[in-house]
């Protein structure tokens, strides 16, 4: 049995995120937080100088930006990355049912995977914007290698996606703090079996069957 199931106070625990995944999530969240925080004075201009000189804010923003892909890459590529890699596959592969669930805004039946389609979309979006912000941010920094039109395009895209990131991250945090069981799993790693039976039934069935997809470590 590779699935850790311990009984405490009649709660059967099912591991959802291993240590590597939790560390990657929080490192990524910290970098996003720092980038979004420093983005505000960069965008609105007039706030900087009140707290920190602008060049310092720029440096923090730049270095956090350049570090942004590191948690994902390190957690995926090492021998420790099996849990991460498996979840990337989950996020990629959708059943017809999942697609329909998203199209009907959650009104069609769903035998949920480890992540529901909304969570999967969030993960895909974050993956894409890491690449996009890294490329456009680097173009803003090393602008000399690009034509004015491309620089303008890069600023446009960096700004447009910054807006989208704020919307998605605020949505993500709202969902997280209103769904305590799922939230606990990104801190402690486990969800209760009852929760999984309701919110991730297909995944629970797979892990229970001992089918060789150990989500626990």
């Amino acid at each position, binding site marked *: 049995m590779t699935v850790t199931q311990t009984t405490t106070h009649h709660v059967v625990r099912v591991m959802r995120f291993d240590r590597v995944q939790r560390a990657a999530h929080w490192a990524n969240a910290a970098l996003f937080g720092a980038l979004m925080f420093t983005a505000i004075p960069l965008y609105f201009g007039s706030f900087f100088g009140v707290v920190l000189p602008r060049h310092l804010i720029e440096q923090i923003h730049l270095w956090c930006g350049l570090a942004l892909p590191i948690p994902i890459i390190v957690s995926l590529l090492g021998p420790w990355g099996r849990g991460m890699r498996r979840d990337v596959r989950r996020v990629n592969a*959708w059943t017809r049912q999942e697609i329909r669930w998203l199209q009907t805004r959650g009104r069609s039946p769903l035998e949920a995977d480890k992540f529901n389609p909304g969570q999967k979309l969030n993960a895909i979006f974050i993956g*894409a914007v890491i690449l996009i912000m890294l490329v456009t941010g680097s173009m803003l920094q090393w602008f000399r290698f690009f034509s*004015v039109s*491309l620089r*303008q*395009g*890069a600023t*446009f895209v960096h700004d*447009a996606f910054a807006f989208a990131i704020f919307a998605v991250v605020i949505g993500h945090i709202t969902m997280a703090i209103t769904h305590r069981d799922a939230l606990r799993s990104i801190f402690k790693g486990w969800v209760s079996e009852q929760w999984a039976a309701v919110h991730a039934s297909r995944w629970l069935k797979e892990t229970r069957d001992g089918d060789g*997809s150990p989500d626990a470590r």
Partner: protein
Amino acid sequence: MLRTTSVDLVSAQEPTKRVPVGRRVFLGVTGLAALGVAFGGSIQNFLGNAFGSGLGGLLPGGDRFRIYSITGEYPKIKDSDYRLKVSGLVHHPKTFTLDDLKAMPVTSFTKTFQCVTGWRVPDVAWEGVLLSDIMDAVGIRDEAVALTFESYDRSDTESLTIDQARLSDVIVAYRMLGAPVTTEHGGPVRLYVAPMFGYKSLKWLSAIRVVDRVQPGFWEQNGYPVNGWLDGTTGPTNPDPSLT
């Protein structure tokens, strides 16, 4: 040890077909971003030209001044305290008050402010004194090659060759956007060098020194071209080929 990989699991144990939605959405979003980088500039320009800066300004990143300051502070200078000191290789060194500048022939035009990092603000109204007129008022000497500009922020400096400074759209501006130049924008008096990127338009102008060689300014020492032409090349260039 894994008995099967989860990919096998997907195909073997789950009859429902899986669609690589993740990959498609990822490629779709990044593709959209790539289009945005390639054409975002043109879209902004088109919308800006077609509808004026009102609509263009609604787009993220569009038509909006980003306020930069090297020191993180905005020098606050009262109009009555303002002085522009012109010295160096001149026949009659002179210190101008704001009223002195306003008493000189007025030059005004409407032009785009283009930042080197990509943003631009079209149709900005500018008003001030031709740099050329200021040079004539003090009389520059024959050995003069360039001008060095200093700022009240005590950090920014800029440079222009005499030929560049003589252009008809290079002014010492005291009005901008239909009002006196604000502190954020470098008021009460700033430089506006229309044919070059914004960093050449030094804010909070405090002094002009006429010198015998180009002294790269703050931004140029930090990697920006000394000749900040918007289109990269045209116009009188710097006589020193090492300073491009």
